[in-house]
């Protein structure tokens, strides 16, 4: 029983990270219909920046400052992506824009290896919460931070899209850019906003996971894949779906690792995901879009 609980706990932890990563995809998708493959790089940069600043940081509350700086950096990165690259793309075709984000992914990896070096960096726990042992189940302190962040960020996004004009304007801008601009919504500004928020969320997630998964410039690809998978599994565009998708993938992974197939855990979660998609082609809680020809 303790073993099962431990698997659940670590599954929720890992799943929360995937969930936060998936939220970045969701928000950019909602505002632009673009799948931003560079989203995983936001986490990578966030983690590395935190590590870099926390190691060399001096004075009061270095961790808080480091995390804040990392979030600012990734937000700027997101803004730069939209303003410098996607805005200037000759093709407005969605597929090409997605390809563009893949190109940017490669570029960011290169940039990170230049700025932060090619070493794995280490960060100590954020502290504040103690590590708990309940019964025989170990709950790491950093895990509390991650779960709290996931809850806050996803509630925030849910409120943004459901209850604020800005959130609705973002969705309108992506669904029908022309009609939206007739209503006084500037689609480009909405796209910029979404990239900044996605960058900030990515930076936060990267910083939070840095103590348990040491940041490295090549980490972005796998985080991107997992986040994308989580966003799709839950039903693309739905923040709650992204969180559920992330938790699901985390739980599957930790269960398959716990019950003797640790080498294959990624394969198992991916293949199960495909099975889910084949049965429910629009994700777990998504609705199929009907397209007129």
């Amino acid at each position, binding site marked *: 029983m303790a073993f099962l609980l431990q698997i659940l706990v670590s599954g929720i932890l890992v799943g929360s990270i995937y969930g936060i990563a998936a939220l970045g995809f969701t928000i950019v998708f909602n505002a632009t219909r673009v*799948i931003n493959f560079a989203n995983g790089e936001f986490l990578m940069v966030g983690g590395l920046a935190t590590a870099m600043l926390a190691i060399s940081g001096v004075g009061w509350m270095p961790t808080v400052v480091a995390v804040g700086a990392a979030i600012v950096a990734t937000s700027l990165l997101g803004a730069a992506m939209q303003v410098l690259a996607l805005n200037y793309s*000759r093709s407005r075709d969605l597929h090409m824009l997605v390809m563009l984000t893949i*190109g940017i*992914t*490669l570029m960011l990896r290169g940039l990170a290896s230049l700025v932060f070096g090619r070493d794995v960096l280490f960060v100590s726990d954020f502290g504040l919460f103690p590590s708990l042992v309940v019964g025989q189940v170990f709950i790491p302190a950093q895990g509390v931070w991650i779960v709290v962040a996931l809850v806050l960020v996803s509630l925030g996004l849910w409120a943004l899209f459901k209850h604020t004009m800005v959130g609705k304007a973002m969705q309108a801008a992506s669904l029908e850019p022309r009609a939206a601009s007739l209503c006084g919504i500037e689609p480009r500004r909405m796209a910029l906003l979404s990239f900044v928020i996605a960058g900030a969320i990515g930076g936060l997630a990267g910083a939070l996971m840095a103590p348990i998964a040491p940041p490295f410039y090549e980490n972005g690809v796998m985080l991107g894949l997992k986040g994308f998978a989580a966003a799709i599994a839950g039903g693309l565009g739905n923040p709650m779906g992204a969180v559920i998708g992330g938790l699901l993938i985390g739980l599957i992974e930790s269960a398959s690792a716990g019950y003797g197939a640790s080498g294959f855990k990624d394969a198992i979660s991916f293949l199960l995901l495909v099975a889910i*998609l*084949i049965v429910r*082609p629009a*994700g777990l809680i998504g609705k199929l879009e009907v397209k007129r020809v």
Partner: protein
Amino acid sequence: MARFMLTSQARDAVGLLALAVVLLVVDLTITGHFHRNLALQAIIFAIAAVGLTLLLGFAGQVSLGQNAFVAIGAYALGNMVQKVGLHPLPALAVSTLLPAIVGYAVSRPILRLSGHYLALATLALGASAYIFASQWTSVTGGLDPGIVDLPKLALVPGLERDQLFTLAALCLLAVMGFSLLLVHSPVGRALQAICTSETVAAGAGIRVDRTKAAIFALAAAFAGLSGGLYALFMRSFNATSFSILLSIELLMMVIVGSLSTIWGALVGALLVVLLPHMLEHFEAAKLFIYGAIMTLVVMFMPNGLASTLFAGVNRLLRGDRAR
């Protein structure tokens, strides 16, 4: 102007001939190991990229999992040669056929998905393939050692010169020829109809599911052939060669080359293989510059480098400058 108006079939035939001549000249004149290997790599990747061009550019079905089929091809060759003791040529046939069969079997359920969902499903395929390549050690040798010490290809015994280049060049010509024929055939037009709208294609009497599955299997077969040749080229390799990054590189070749013509795959493969070597002097910044060039090409030449080049050449031939 009229002198240069060839039908697209005739133009492709001339192009194929020119390609054969270029490959022959390269084979005969370039003797240095380094440059020969680069050219060979470009040829090997081009074969897989041609398949992906058919799938993505013509049928409009994205695949981020081509690395799976390259891996199956490479490991099939390794195992056939080392464990079964097959001659490399029939082994190469196995590395083409096996991925085709796997591709067909996988494609039936997967191709029910479309757009981003298809991208994810193929991505899952590619990511899982890498995991199997690194974990299923009895077949693949895993990460260390992998498959080691395949024999050097010697089709004509006693002949000193490197024969793999010739074999790969012939494979590329065959793949190109077949693909060009396919594009100009009713199947090619059916693919483009599917790309535009599956509903309309079905309405016009095209068997959408079957055609899509067939082209997926064909792209898998080309990727497998490419993998088999890769195995013969490397002779020792491990799972790291087949990570999802390989799929992304193949995708880059197609995008940077061209989505609308098979020839783009050649340009793309050449660029993706050569670029990292041209950037050798930049050491630390290599990865960044590589990414930046890819990004700029996608930004400013959305039709691909090849299409932009061809259009430029056409304009020059016709003598009317871009106004």
